[in-house]
């Protein structure tokens, strides 16, 4: 991973927004990696949860907003209960999803879900998914 840092980048608007929406202090993270060690979805992420925190600390807005990480997160709260710095990383993931969704785009398009899938899926799965993946 090669990221060029500039002073203007480090004081990124994105990090500020994430802090505001999630109510978390991104800079409290000291990169212990405990969140990533317990994350059940890590195999499907490009940046691990602790790397996402590092990117946010560095203000690497583009890298994080274009990453898969927050979309693969299952909101299981495991990272949040284990973080020694009491950071609710699950809320940080939520903030990242919302920043994207609030540009008025969907991550999952409900109308594109194949019919044979729809008839199997219970509404608990659908409502939950749409709450996390649609605007």
């Amino acid at each position: 991973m090669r990221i060029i840092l500039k002073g203007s980048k480090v004081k990124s608007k994105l990090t500020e927004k994430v802090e505001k929406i999630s109510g978390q202090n991104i800079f409290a993270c000291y990169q212990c990696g405990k969140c990533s060690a317990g994350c059940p979805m890590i195999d499907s992420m490009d940046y691990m949860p602790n790397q996402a925190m590092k990117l946010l600390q560095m203000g690497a807005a583009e890298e994080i907003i274009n990453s898969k990480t927050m979309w693969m997160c299952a909101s299981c709260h495991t990272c949040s209960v284990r973080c020694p710095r009491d950071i609710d990383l699950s809320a940080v993931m939520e903030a990242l999803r919302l920043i994207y969704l609030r540009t008025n785009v969907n991550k999952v398009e409900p109308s594109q879900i194949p019919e044979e899938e729809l008839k199997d899926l219970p509404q608990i799965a659908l409502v939950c998914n749409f709450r996390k993946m649609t605007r």
Partner: protein
Amino acid sequence: MKYAYYPGCTLKSYADNLESSVLAVAEKLGIQMEELPHWTCCGTVFSQADDDLVHQIAPLRILLDAQKVGAKKLLVVCSMCYNTLKQASLLFEKKPDKLETLNLFLDDEDDYLGEVEVVHFLQVLRDEVGIEEIAKQVVRPLTGLNVAPYYGCLLLRPQEVAFDEPERPTVIEEILVALGAEAIMDPLKVECCGSYQTVNNKEIIADRTRTIINSARSRGAEMIALDCPLCDFNLDFRQKESEKKYTDFFTMPILYYTQLMALAMGINGDIYGFDKHYVDPRPLLKEYELI
């Protein structure tokens, strides 16, 4: 013991066998459950965004409905509804300013006062009924049946909603032991099944499910007992995908803990819905002469 009861949408559809077994067990144990006269969807997940009040309206309405029937406690069975309502109720307690804004927005004659306590059925079983009382009701012990409990995420996390130790919960084990079954200890009992990723990433769920089931089996489990309808869909129905993806995968029956309680309490009748499961639990239950 009388409770106002919020079923939620899934207990009236996909997981109606969870509701029917809960109601049968509750009757046996003297827990009166009075369904709220009006209720709507809770939203299924709690919004974690500090600036997103509109998604708190759905749980707020339900808590207000409970307040209107004079309930001090609201009993919830579905673990996802429990989590959403519990987190919302704690938010309203801690942040009165947010509650005030929402009450204004709701435009209902009554304001929600922030006083309803959300409790889970498992909590009532353990703390109000008591494990010993459950054991006393057992007429058909599940002797020899090896069951791995599975808690998933939302009963136990975040910490504020947990009524058991988040990393090492025991309440389902305690119940299983009271029923005469062998409770298999499996560290993956608190690992996420992949949750809502099941809609757009079902191959991942196929992997999660395989990992969780294989771990339980390697410790001697013959079935898994769980509490959450979404975990149930992922661990039961998504075994179809695990089978497709891995030729060496063997299926395992998945039951709600309340179905096992009803069996052990000798409850007969049309409450089990075993034909609704993807992996048919009946051959195993017959082997142990439980049906």
